């Protein structure tokens, strides 16, 4: 087993024992379910909306070449500089280069999962530039020097007391219980950062091909401020974010808000189509769009799992995932956590090293049911498992399943096995729950059902005779 998998198992084991964490997350998400269902009910028909969204995304993803070129030609026409990055490294190098060229000393960053994906903040900091996260949750986890806990709610694992302690330690603010006051502390600090920043970095929730603009959604207005105040704006966008028409947003904005944050629509939706134009009073002097591949075209080539590129990063699948709710976001040690992360990560970072995530699922399908763009998540986990075993299977496991085939394909052998098991289980008590127990993985925490004296097959034979 690889190291990443061992660390995952160990962290997950620790988190499942943390009952405070368990009840905290269950409670927080309990409120989300109520709100989400209320907002879902505002759609004329949520299931049809999902179908329509899936079809629009299917069109976009299957004609990415056409829509991306359209997007680029439109947005370039208004003076935007577009850079195509095949890898995360290329994207980082380009953005660091822009920062160096303009002698940028500080950057305000709006929330962008693509930034997390390529470790952009670290690359910029290494080159001597200060990067400040402006989304409140992201700012909190940045101060804690940890990764986001959730795609949409990066600091949902923290209580207000923990945040108060953090601000007290890092910002010197007075301790407080009030969420409003905590927000004001962050706001006062961040306002100064906005005014001093030379560059703003954002992601994009959508890129509209028809009009050549990006759509940016936040609930704090930080996206708008980060992209309009500094003299340079860089948007780092996954190539799968493109949507054909502006009208598509009429569906996707409320859908993202509903599935992502249990809102009818997010508070701030900003459309950006270029740098400050002539006769415009404000906006950045330069606008750079970095289109990021970083493994996405590999996924595009995989007909079976191409729909994974439909993902709008709403986090809806995390919120319903019983695995996520029990092990928490940090256990995954990935940029994208929860079901979508377990599907995506093996594609982006290597199946051999990350396959354990596809196995760490009960395949319950709650994710697939929740996904607003109908990604067949739990079936993709099964396909990842198949692909992983095709690449390399542990010899002992292979042997077990070959034995399984022999047993199941020979009814007499199967019956004999059941009978032997019935005799053998009398001695199970001697080793049960110890490391010598062949079924220790089960019996360490659960009782095993006994094999019946008479099987169904025995019953049937008696019934027939």
């Amino acid at each position, binding site marked *: 087993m690889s190291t990443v998998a061992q660390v995952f*198992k160990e962290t*997950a*084991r620790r988190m*499942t024992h943390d009952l405070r964490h*368990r009840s905290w997350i*269950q409670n927080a998400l309990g409120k989300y379910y109520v709100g989400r269902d209320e907002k879902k009910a505002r759609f004329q028909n949520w299931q049809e909306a999902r179908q329509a969204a899936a079809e629009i995304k299917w069109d976009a993803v299957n004609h990415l070449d056409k829509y991306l070129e359209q997007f680029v030609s439109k947005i370039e026409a208004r003076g935007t500089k577009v850079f195509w990055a095949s890898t995360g490294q290329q994207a980082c190098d380009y953005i660091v280069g822009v920062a160096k060229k303009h002698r940028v000393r500080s950057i305000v960053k709006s929330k962008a999962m693509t930034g997390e994906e390529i470790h952009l903040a670290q690359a910029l900091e290494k080159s001597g530039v200060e990067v400040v996260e402006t989304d409140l949750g992201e700012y909190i986890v940045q101060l804690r020097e940890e990764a986001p806990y959730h795609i949409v709610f990066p600091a949902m694992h923290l209580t207000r007391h923990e945040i108060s302690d953090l601000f007290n330690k890092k910002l010197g603010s007075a301790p407080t219980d009030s969420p409003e006051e905590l927000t004001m502390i962050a706001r006062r600090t961040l306002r100064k950062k906005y005014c001093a920043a030379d560059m703003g970095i954002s992601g994009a929730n959508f890129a509209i091909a028809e009009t050549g603009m990006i759509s940016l959604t936040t609930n704090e207005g930080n996206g708008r401020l980060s992209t309009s105040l500094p003299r340079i704006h860089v948007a780092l966008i996954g190539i799968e974010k493109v949507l054909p028409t502006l009208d598509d947003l009429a569906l996707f904005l409320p859908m993202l808000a509903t599935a992502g944050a249990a809102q009818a629509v997010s508070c701030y939706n900003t459309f950006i189509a270029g740098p400050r134009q002539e006769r415009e009073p404000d906006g950045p002097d330069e606008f750079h769009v970095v289109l990021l591949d970083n493994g996405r075209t590999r996924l595009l080539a995989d007909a079976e799992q191409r729909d994974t590129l439909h993902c709008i990063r709403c986090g809806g699948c995390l919120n319903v995932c*019983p*695995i996520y*709710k*029990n*092990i928490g976001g940090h256990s995954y040690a990935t940029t994208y956590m929860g079901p979508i992360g377990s599907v995506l990560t093996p594609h982006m970072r290597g199946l051999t090293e990350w396959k354990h995530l596809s*196995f*760490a*699922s*009960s*395949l*319950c*399908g*709650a994710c697939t*049911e929740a996904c607003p763009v109908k990604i067949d998540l739990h*079936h993709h986990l*099964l396909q990842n*498992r*198949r*692909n*992983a*075993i*095709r690449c390399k*299977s542990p010899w002992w*496991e*292979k042997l077990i*399943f*070959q034995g*399984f*085939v022999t*047993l*199941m*394909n020979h*009814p007499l052998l*199967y019956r004999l096995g*059941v009978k032997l098991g019935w005799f053998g289980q009398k001695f199970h008590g001697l080793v049960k729950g110890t490391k010598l127990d062949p079924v220790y*993985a*089960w019996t*360490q*925490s*659960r*009782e*095993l*059902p*006994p*094999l*019946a004296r*008479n*099987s*169904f*097959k025995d*019953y*049937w*034979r008696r*019934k027939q005779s």
Partner: protein
Amino acid sequence: MKISLFIPCFIDACYPQVGISMVKVLERLGHQVEYPEDFTCCGQPAFNSGYWDEARAVAEKVLAMYRSAEIIVGVSGSCGAMMMTFYKELFHGTPLEAEAKAHAAKVWEFSDFLVTKLGVTDVGAKFPAKVTFHDGCHGLREVGLKKQPRALLAKVQGLELIEMDAAESCCGFGGTFSVKFPMISTAMGEVKCDSALKTKADYIVSCDSSCLMHIQGLADRQKKPLRTMHLAEVLAKQ
């Protein structure tokens, strides 16, 4: 109507009373049943673990065994889902693809068969107890079992159904997942047990003995006063 039964391996070996109950109910309704005795397993453990070649080797035999069957009724939502949904994926692009599809169209889960196919909700059962219902994931999301088992329970004399919070959330079993990641599986089971306990029901009922095996195994180890019973057993009570 000629009904062919499929009895999953672990029901045959550990919970024969579940299969026997199904036979009793179907016979009580006047149907003749037959059982291909050579049936052992649908192949799901191998399939879920990534061993699709091995799963296919087992599933091929299953297809052959039921080739002449008119209607196949099984007493598990999960194994039913394997045949109805996953065989199609398993045999996709193979010479048996068409047969897997034809087979899938003949397979019914027991409660769905009674309610949807036969249009029966009252099977003449009597069971004076408070029960809560656990929606097994495969039954719920792959087969679409939700109203069917509840419609049947509603007609059981003396029975009171008390819904638990998050009846649709997974019990944590997940086949080989339960032994590959036992601590996550156990934590999920604990959440499920807590929901069920809050209802103060006498029994947790489900369409899947595999979920119930997990819930019961955990409750017994943690000495939680929970008892489980398959829907077929409830329906056989008189």
